[in-house]
């Protein structure tokens, strides 16, 4: 079981309030991702849940029990750190066994669980090596192994993939997702990478300056961002946010349209502009269109085969049915 409830939790460092009163419930078995720009308080929030920082006021409940002043070791949570935080003087086996040793399990049980974790994570071949002899991805697996042997109520991940190279990151992303499917344990995952957030999460919590901007499934956030911040943060490339006369024409203060919802053609659309930089990804091409008469550069996502080049005059057709309308207060209009 692992249902975590935050009730009016706040955190201040001295006079600086980094987390204003915040309420959040994470359901048992849910994969929740905290996402936001750096300095938004997502890591602090995770550390508050872990118990590595004390909350200033409010209450944290784990499975209904008040855990506010319970030390981290007895909250039944396991954490995977960005730096892996392996014990450098211990072999892989001893690293994984450490939490079990601390829990004073008998040796046979420790061996059984360590072997189990090692085979799940393909660590068996280097179980007697020291962390210094492992690659980044292997170290990350050891850190995860150390977390799973405890059979915790919930896993906490603090940007676990940001030290890995891009290819490895994709692989580990899948592994963690698969692990979640298999264990069905609550996982809380902190990242600034919205691709990780979108692909892994059951539920995304978007944070800014300690405030929750929106909570929802990845597709909810993508389809119906609650405000301009979420609209700009979720989705890559970023949503085009247009204000001025064009927005007024659509009855709003700011008009949002995602790059993938604009069609680019030689002529015939309501907007037109000049192609600036094109980014070719192979499968897709991102065109940055200037001189559209709108107040910002419009980014368009087109098929990789669409062949316009720098300086070409093009015509743009936005899809009316997936436009996002925001009021002067930045909130989504119904």
């Amino acid at each position, binding site marked *: 079981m692992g249902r975590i409830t935050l009730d009016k939790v706040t955190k201040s460092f001295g006079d600086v309030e980094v987390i204003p009163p915040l309420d959040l419930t994470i359901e048992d078995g849910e994969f929740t991702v905290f996402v936001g720009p750096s300095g938004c308080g997502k890591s602090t929030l995770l550390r508050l849940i872990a118990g590595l920082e004390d909350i200033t006021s409010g209450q944290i409940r784990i499975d209904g029990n008040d855990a506010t002043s319970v030390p*981290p070791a007895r909250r039944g949570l396991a954490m995977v750190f960005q730096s892996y935080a392996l014990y450098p003087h211990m072999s892989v086996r001893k690293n994984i066994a450490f939490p079990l040793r601390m829990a004073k399990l008998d040796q046979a049980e420790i061996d059984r669980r360590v072997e189990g974790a090692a085979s799940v994570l393909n660590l068996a071949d280097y179980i007697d090596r020291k962390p210094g002899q492992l690659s980044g991805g292997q170290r990350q697996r050891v850190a995860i192994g*150390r977390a799973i042997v405890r059979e915790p109520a919930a896993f906490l991940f603090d940007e676990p993939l940001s030290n890995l190279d891009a290819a490895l990151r994709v692989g580990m992303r899948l592994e963690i997702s698969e692990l979640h499917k298999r264990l069905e344990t609550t996982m809380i995952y902190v990242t600034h990478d919205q691709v990780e957030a979108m692909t892994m999460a059951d539920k995304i919590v978007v944070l800014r300056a300690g405030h929750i901007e929106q909570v929802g499934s990845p597709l909810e956030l993508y389809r119906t961002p609650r405000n301009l911040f979420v609209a700009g943060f979720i989705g890559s490339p970023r949503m085009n946010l247009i204000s001025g006369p064009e927005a007024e024409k659509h009855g709003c203060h700011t008009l949002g349209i995602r790059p993938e919802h604009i069609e680019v053609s030689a002529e015939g659309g309501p907007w037109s502009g000049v192609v600036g930089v094109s980014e070719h990804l192979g499968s897709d091409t991102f065109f940055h269109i200037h001189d559209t008469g709108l107040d910002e550069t419009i980014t368009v996502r087109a098929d990789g085969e669409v062949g316009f080049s720098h300086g070409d005059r093009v015509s743009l057709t936005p899809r009316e049915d997936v436009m996002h309308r925001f009021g002067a207060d930045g909130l989504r209009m119904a």
Partner: protein
Amino acid sequence: MARTVTARRKAINTAIAWTIGLLIFFPILWTILTSFKTEAEAIASPPSFLFFDWTLENYAVVQERSNYMRFLWNSVIIAVGSTILGIIIAVPAAWSMAFVPSKRTKDILLWMLSTKMLPAVGVLYPIYLIFIRMGILDSRAGLVVVLMLINLPIIVWMLYTYFKEIPGEILEAARMDGATLKSEILYVLTPMAIPGIASTVLLNIILAWNEAFWTLNLTAANAAPLTAFIASYSSPEGLFYAKLSAASTMAIAPILILGWFSQKQLVRGLTFGAVK
């Protein structure tokens, strides 16, 4: 552009380094040489450097007149005992300063170091009286405590700098893994800090071994270490240079040998953290 070091320049640097090294080592070398001379040769003018009749006579006399082993044993107990006691007290102190610093941690560290700037003789009288009252004058236990206190600031400072190098996340991981404070220090922090602790131990054994002020003033016969052994050859007999040299050589030999074999560890320890 990388700085180029010419062969000529390298040779000059090497020569300068050797000259400075030999100058620093010369008094010790001279003491050792003198210990193998007769008393007459020891005060001969001009002094002979290597070409004299080597003799072990001084060592025989010194050995005959005083019980070297007893002084040596006292030195070992005092140096090792005070260092171990110091480490036991300093590890938790340095842990808390490095990992849960308060607003005043830096001040406390400086204050601790400032006690080293106080002339020792300034507190001799009160400490002497305390020793008399407690009946620990001329006892090894008393000296172990005093030398531990004298060196504690340095032990704490050294350990503090080593602990600062250890990433806090690893200790947090231990906490998440269910380690109590004791297990965290015992199984995670200490093994990781072994190189630092080792050089702290070595340096403090050397400092305690060489400490003369307190050992001379607080001991008489029972607890007297090798410093007192040397001192006993300097005063009453007048200028018996050769025997004094032999006694000195015997007193410094153990620590010199220890230092020689552990120099790699010492240098590494003292420059630890200087380059990341």
